């Protein structure tokens, strides 16, 4: 097995491969490219990668099949889905299938980097399984969402309240993957949000803006002003006082089907 590299980009569109490769190498990461799912799987069997950035809509082997295959081979690579708005619903599904994050196309260099950097940190935190050389933050203890919570990948959580409203927030792991947080912007009350869309922006110390994917579609009834005023609240108590929104869900049943149980899975 060869030495571990940082990123494998899989996309059937050369311009996107080149673009992602350029931005990521510019950030000092090692990047390889594959033009289709089969080539990607072949490369994955040759050497380990920390992150696989994978398109969903590809001819022959699509993103989901790659995800399944990666899971079957028990690869340690974290998969980030890159896809257009048109397949937003698929993206949410991909998060419940084992992808850790996703980046909606088209993206700017910074939007891409914010996702890549936090996923790199996540990869480091979860411990490089194949390289054998634990990183400095490896095996960091993180707190999974409590029982009764639903989560969208490792990013956000949702809690159905007795009144039928839904409380949402970000996971401890997501906050930790951002590094130091410098600010939070939340949407005003009354706004409609769709599941999988960005509902908040968290700025990290490295100047990146991270979109938080909303786990449930609905209308914002209330936002946590305390969290916006002091973003450290999200880091300290992400599951209780560090909530973000209270939503009036529009189609809760459907949304919940695409979410995972709070404390399940590999995170």
């Amino acid at each position, binding site marked *: 097995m060869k030495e571990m590299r940082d990123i494998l980009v899989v996309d059937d*569109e050369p*311009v*996107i491969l080149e*673009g*992602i490769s*350029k*931005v990521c190498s*510019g950030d000092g990461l090692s990047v390889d490219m594959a033009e289709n799912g089969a080539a990607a799987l072949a490369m994955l069997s040759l050497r380990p990668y920390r992150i696989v950035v994978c398109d969903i*809509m590809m001819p022959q082997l699509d993103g989901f099949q790659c995800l399944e295959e990666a899971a079957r081979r028990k690869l340690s690579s974290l998969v980030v889905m890159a896809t*257009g*708005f*048109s*397949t937003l619903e698929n993206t949410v599904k991909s998060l419940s299938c084992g992808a850790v994050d996703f980046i909606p*196309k*088209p*993206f*700017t*260099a*910074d939007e*891409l980097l914010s996702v890549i950097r936090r996923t790199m940190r996540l990869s480091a935190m979860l411990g490089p399984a194949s390289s054998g050389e634990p990183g400095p933050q490896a095996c960091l203890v993180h707190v999974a969402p409590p029982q009764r919570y639903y989560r969208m990948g490792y990013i956000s959580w949702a809690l159905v309240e007795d009144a039928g409203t839904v409380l949402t927030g970000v996971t401890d792991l997501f906050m930790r993957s951002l590094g130091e947080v410098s600010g939070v912007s939340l949407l*005003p*009350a*009354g*706004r*409609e949000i769709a599941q999988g869309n960005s509902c908040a922006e968290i700025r990290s110390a490295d100047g990146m803006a991270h979109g938080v994917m909303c786990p449930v579609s609905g209308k914002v009834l209330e936002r946590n002003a305390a969290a916006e005023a002091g973003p450290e609240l999200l880091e300290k108590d992400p599951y209780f006082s560090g909530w973000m929104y209270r939503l009036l869900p529009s189609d809760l049943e459907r949304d919940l089907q695409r979410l995972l149980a709070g404390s399940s899975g590999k995170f």
Partner: protein
Amino acid sequence: MMMRKLGFKLTLVACVTALVTIGIFSFFNTRSDSRNLLAEVERHASQLSDAVKSATEYDMLLNQRERIRQSIQRMGNQPSIQRIRVMNKAGEIIYSSDRGEIGRMVDKKAESCYICHSDGEPLKRLEMKERTRIFRARPDASRTLGIISPIYNMPSCWTAACHVHSKSQAVLGVLDVTMPLTEVDKDIRQSQLEILVFAGGAVLALSLIIGLFVKRWVDAPVKELLAATRRVADGDLRYMIKVTRDDELGMLAEAFNNMTHRLSEARLQLFQSDKLASLGRLAAGVAHEINNPLTGVLTYSSYLLKRAGGQPEMQKDLQVIVRETMRSREIVKSLLDFARQSVPNRTKADIHRVIDLAAAVVENQLAINKVRLVKEYAPDIPPVTIDSNQIQQVFINLFVNAADAIGQAGGVITVTSSKLSLSPVGTTQIKKALCPKRHDLLDREYRIDGMPSIRIKVRSGAEEGFLHLDPVYGLDRAGSGLPFEAGSGAAFMCPECSSSLIAPKTTCPKCGSAVYAFEVPFKGMVEGCTRPGCKWRRWEAVDAAGTMEFVEVKVRDTGCGIPGKDLARIFEPFYSTKDQKGTGLGLAVIWGILDNHNGTIGVESEEGRGTVFTVRIPVKP
């Protein structure tokens, strides 16, 4: 093919019936005719016999044989008489108009004698019928009628001087008169021929008349129905049968039109949703296709922008590329949002909350324009059943429009709410109007306050024109609109099929004039007085419903106002007063949303002072 046609079959049956009836009638008619004629001839012959007997009686008594012979000779020469002869009891011909046979013996088995002498002992009395016989002398000769009259023995006979006859004889001899039936037979044949010609002509005329009417009343409409059915089956749902009749086939055609109309409406709706679905698919496809190149541009340009730190000029240019590409991204995103548009979802909602949410959305824009939003809510507003998202969109649009009208100088938008109970008269819009033959009377070109008017063709004397009725029940904002004065006998008609809209049994209770009427599907008939100036109208279904409760919200701005010429058209699709800035769809969409809620929107404006939009939503849906 011809034999299978319904019209042909009907005509054929009618013809055969006529043929049989007239045939039987003619048969009996000719038979009775010839009988009557013969009876007449018989009577005539009998009278003649009597006349011969009377004429010769005296001479007989005197036994003037020569005179008798001459008399018989003379009489026998009459053209209507063939022969007169007298035979004695023994069968000897004593006198005859045919001299040659005098003295000859007649065979008693001959047909003139047979009747009495058939059974040996001769009969003494004979009925008229039995005395006559019709025979042909030769098979090829014409018919002849013969009548025999016995010459009875009378006291004067045996007391006469000649003493030829004894007292004991009952019958002295027989007078036999024969008459040719040539003329009678000719008459009979003539009459038979006439009846035959008449019968044939009658059957032919009957067939023609029945055939013609069957063709007009059955064949043609059935053919048209068939053609229409085929066209509809071929997918032409706009095809309408011209209904010009009010019998069952006319009703069938009307029902057919109705069915096609409903079908086409359903298909249109299906088509509409199908169109939206395909548009959605198209949008999704375009979004996907455009996303990849857009990603290339955005990634590279933003990457370049990051690296162009030291070159401010290039940074500026790159910023433009990044900004515009991100704008394209938003367009693609909204295209997809449109494709995902959810179906209307009505729930009970507090209108104030909906307005507050709408105000929150435009908060920033209003603040930038230095616009103050003042809310004057009434305390007792009941909840309304609405699609909150759609109604919120209505108010967002109205606020944005108001802010645009106010411009940069700053101003005030005032939102007031109130509850009001309205009589349906003057508020209920007629959204559909049909003539008796189900033609649409709405004129979408000629609108009154944004609503399609109701168009009626009016003919008064030689003049003809269109009357545009106010679509709001009870209002008459259009006036008559006719270029001429409609007289009291004016005809009110459907512009399409010219069928009369005048209600047959109703007169205006106010002025007694004729009343027009049209149908609003599922909501009964709307009636109105035809006399210009008379405002009487009646719509029983709506009158019966009583007053309706509305929530009224007025959005008043202190902006530039709307010129009068635009005011009438602002709710029309693609009519924009913002030149390049707007699509012209905003107010049309609002109008559509409120229309779906059975609500209304109205506008009043004063140039330079501001505009007031009045939204009314019924409390009960």
